[in-house]
């Protein structure tokens, strides 16, 4: 078996040459992304750099104009989001989107209706326990605090037993202690074998969490590597801090 075949079998998400425009605005200009099984990948970039557009394309919420997206070796470029979810791709949203009008438990039963085994209730309760929401199981989703809403988003994503989790700004608006709590959950999920893509503006969190970081700017990948290497990259510093940062 050649090295390239060995590498291919370990890639769980592969995006190649993804382009997406909204009218005259080119949000993505040929972006490549690779995520290996069990890897923690951070995606950073200033507002408007194309981070959310990229993960919307990977999750299937948006269809790319050009390029290809593969999930576990299968071309999913034209598959709708629910088919990708069943193939093991889960995501959370930048602004939490709980299923209002439903209890916390019912929120988890929704994905389990399609991917759960015979004991869906047991599965849902186990996931709620893993994120510390089991005591809130019968409360309406709209009664949760910001931290609990973030946990609910994670729990709902996990209920589908994903192989890949995309966490889109899962720590936005949280206090330092709450960020630590969410990070612990994400580390634990990763240890259980779930590969995670983290899109985040909270730099210390994404630097601490990620094994590898990709930096986007105006729809292009401008840097990629270990957190330390990307943080030290002069191009990244210029994007974040302006021209003076290089002097």
């Amino acid at each position, binding site marked *: 078996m050649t090295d390239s075949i060995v590498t291919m079998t370990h890639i769980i998400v592969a995006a190649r040459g993804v382009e997406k425009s909204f009218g005259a605005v080119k949000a993505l200009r040929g972006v490549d992304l690779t995520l290996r099984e069990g890897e923690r990948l951070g995606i950073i970039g200033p507002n408007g750099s194309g981070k959310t557009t990229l993960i919307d394309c990977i999750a299937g919420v948006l269809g790319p104009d050009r390029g290809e997206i593969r999930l576990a070796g299968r071309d999913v470029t034209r598959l709708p989001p629910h088919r990708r*979810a069943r193939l093991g791709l889960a995501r959370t949203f930048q602004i939490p*989107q709980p*299923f209002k009008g439903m209890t916390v438990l019912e929120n988890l039963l*929704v994905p389990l209706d*399609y991917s759960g085994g015979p004991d869906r209730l047991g599965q849902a309760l186990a996931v709620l326990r893993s994120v510390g929401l089991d005591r809130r199981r019968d409360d309406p989703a709209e009664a949760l605090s910001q931290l609990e809403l973030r946990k609910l988003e994670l729990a709902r994503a996990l209920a*589908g037993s994903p192989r890949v989790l995309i966490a889109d700004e899962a720590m936005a608006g949280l206090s330092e202690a709450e960020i630590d709590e969410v990070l612990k959950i994400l580390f634990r999920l990763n240890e259980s074998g779930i590969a995670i893509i983290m899109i985040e503006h909270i730099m210390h969190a994404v630097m601490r969490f990620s094994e590898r970081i990709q930096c986007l700017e105006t729809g292009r990948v401008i840097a990629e590597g270990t957190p330390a290497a990307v943080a030290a990259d002069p191009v990244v510093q210029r994007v974040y801090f302006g021209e003076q940062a290089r002097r």
Partner: protein
Amino acid sequence: MRPAAAFGIAALVVAAGLLAPKLPVNTYYFYAGYVVLQFVAVATAWNVLGGYGGYINFGAAAFFGAGAYAAAGLFKAFGLPLPLQIMAAAGVGVALGAAMGYLTLRVQGVYFAIATLSLVVVLETLVHNVEYLGGARGLAILAPPAPAWFGGRTQFAFFVMLAVAAASVLAAWLIENSWIGRGLRAIRASESAAECAGVPTLKLKILACAVSGGLLAAAGAPYPYYASYIEPGTAFSLTVGLNAIAMPLIGGTRSWAGPVMGAVLLGTLQQVATVTISSELNVLLVGLALIAFVAAAPNGLLSLPRRPRSKDAIRHD
């Protein structure tokens, strides 16, 4: 409640309806009761897509009218008995709902609402131009007499509509308490989050549209028998479309009980107003009731017990 219990309650309601004709009351109560039950069925049917799924269908009258004309046409052509007319009309409603859903449910919000509204105009214009169905003049129905047990056609029509309403409410209950209902409520809350959670949103919406259409058509099917006459203006009436939306909104859209409560309340009020004041007052009553409920109970009657106490009430504790 288990499904078997729900089936049992529905069967009991229908069984009680069998005894209703033996009550020593004026036939008019059956005549008015039919209309109230018809709106229970209509409101419940509308709520399957509009309430659970959050897709506002302004075209309830199109399905209702299609059901009524399908029944009338089948009776004229083959002399089908009423139960078969209702089943066939429901089939027409399911097909119409699935077709409309397939064509329009890819778009969200106001575009879907406009598409449903246009369906009423399309079908009404179509019927206007079909001579076999009486065209603009309408069609008189010389239906056979009712079974002897019921004592008259009005009582029989009342019983049939009670059975249709009970079947509609049972279907809504089954949907509400299943993966279909959960998926629809997820769609209502956030369609993109539902889709990313694995819910096949388009398929579920088409299914809900087909079921809703079938139940609406079933609610319209007994109308030609009940009224002995059908014409496009009544079958595709604004009153049906308006009540189909207003009644669930007044009662509450999140549960099967909401449309039932809204229909009984508003339907009864309309019947009383028709007798005591004027039938023209009906639409005004719907409008006034909607304004009152939007102000006092925007989530419907069902939400009232759960509303938080006012600041005054807390202060006086």
